Every structure is written in C-alpha cells, then in structure tokens.
C-alpha cells in the first residue's frame, strides 16, 4: 500500500490531534502534516506532495475556503475536504462548487475514517 501524505489545517490543536488519531486508525503508515493556520499550511506544503487534506473554515488569517482554492491549484489531484462547524447550506454549496468534500464538526472516528477510506 502506498504511503500517503495528509495535510490537516485547523486552528484547534485538539481537532488536529483527533483527526490525526482517527486517520491513523485506518492508515497508521500515513504521514500527517499539521498546520494551525492557512499561512502555516502554505509554508509547510512547500516541496511536499499532498494526497489528502482536511481544512477548517473559520480560522484567523486566511479562511478555509480561500486556502482550499489556493491548494486546489497547487495540488489538483489531492482529495480535499472542508471540515467545519459552519453547517449552513451556503457553505456546503460553496464547497461543492469548488469540488471538495464537506464534513461537519463535531468530528467522529466514523466521519474521518469514512472520508479517508
């Protein structure tokens, strides 16, 4: 099985830890790159091949939707998912328009494993 690299962007450290733990339940060999902001994410992906991403929407600085647009250009083949507590229809529609998945918070093992399976 190919080792994949996943980018987890969320300003909550707790959420990043939970996503990492749940991903490792399904794929213990995957590399996880964590970022606490959009700006940090853009720095950390330099020189990396990203295969999977989860991106929070409501963060200080660059918001998740703007970050997703930038990363979509950089990694067009990657699987991207907006992982957010903002469950309004308008947000889900924007994610769909951008061609990325939508997973609502609170996160559970079932939701995260479902996304990466």
């Amino acid at each position, binding site marked *: 099985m190919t080792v994949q690299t996943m980018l987890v962007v969320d300003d*909550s450290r707790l959420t990043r830890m939970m996503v990492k733990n749940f991903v490792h339940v399904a794929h213990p060999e995957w590399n996880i790159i964590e970022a606490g902001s959009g700006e940090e994410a853009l720095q950390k992906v330099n020189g990396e091949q990203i295969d999977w991403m989860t991106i929070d929407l409501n963060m200080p600085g660059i918001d998740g939707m703007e970050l997703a647009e930038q990363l979509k250009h950089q990694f067009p083949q990657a699987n991207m998912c907006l992982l957010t507590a903002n469950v309004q229809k308008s947000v889900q529609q924007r994610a769909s328009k951008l061609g990325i998945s939508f997973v609502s918070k609170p996160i559970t093992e079932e939701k995260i494993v479902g996304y990466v399976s």
Partner: protein
Amino acid sequence: MNNNLNEMQQDAIGELLNIGLGQAAAAFSEQVQQEVLLSIPNISFYTLQEASNVLEKLIGSEACLLIQTFSGPIWGDALLALTPQDSLEIIEILLPPHTEQERRQQEAEVLTHIGTLILSTTLKSLQSLFPDPIKMGKKQFKKGAVYTLLDESTTTFHYRTGTALVLCMSLTLAEKKQSCYISIIMNHEALQALKTDLDHLLNLV
C-alpha cells in the same frame, strides 16, 4: 483558586463553542433566509466593568440584551447583545409586512425567540462534556445602558470586584452586516467544574 485555563483547555472550550456557534448560525440563517458569518470565539477573564467596556466598544453604550441564565453541571449567564438599530432591522427581516410601530411592539417577543434559539444551541455544544443536562433558566429581554443591564441582570458578577470567565463570539448577517454578540459568563466555581470535565475530555484524546 487558579482561574487560568491552560492552552489545551482554552483550545477545547473554544472548539466546543465554535461547534455550537456553527449550529446556532445554521438555525439563525434559516430564520433570516441569508448566510450568517461567524467570528472566532474569544476567551477572557473580565470584571463587570471590563466586560461592560468590551461590549460598549462593540455596540455602543445603549444595547438590546437577552439574558438567559443556565444551571446544572456548569452555571452562569448567556447574553445576546445587539445595537437598538440592528435589533429593529432584524425584526424587519423576520416580520417584513408589519409597520414600524408593530415591529417595535413585537421586538421583545421576537428577539427573545431568536435569542433563546441562538443561546441554547450554542450552550448545547458544552453538553457533550457532562452526563447531567445543562438547564435553561430565566430569560429577560432588556434595553438600556450596557453597564446597568449587566449589573442588574447577570448573576455571575455578584461579587463586583471579582472576575468572571467571559466567552465572546458574534454572528453577522452577510447582506447588511447586522450583528449579534454572544457572551457566556461563568463565575469561578463554575469554571472549576468546567475545567475538571475539560481535562476528562482531553485525557480521552
């Protein structure tokens, strides 16, 4: 008594409230039929005067305030604050065919309904920490000077020299930017109860 929340405890409560705020925004968005923008929760310790100053900076010295007390495993006051102008404009969105006089007459009732929906949905996000239910208590809609409203209506600033934990967030209507400011205020004893359960949650991760 140690009032400080460590970094992970602040992170956890911020994320739980963020989830509650997202659900409150979705419920509010359905009522007003437009997108609602969310702020990032801010967690601080304030005295009554400081909390009043913060709210005055956001909405001015006169406010419309819905105050909802809550009790159970944690206890305190949840507030929804708006400028008088934003309050009437939100009523106008909700009750478009009514005259201004009718809207003013129904302001308390409508904002109590909307405010209760927003505050109880936001508070529900903390419920996952506790086996016992967080119960919604007395609610009051008031208009007036911010400091006076906080002083008369909240239970958590009873000891006036003491600080309380104040969690501030906002919801803003996307089209004309009317904003509601949400604060959850807890005293020192409630904070200790919250910290214990936050640590329990963090130990599970």
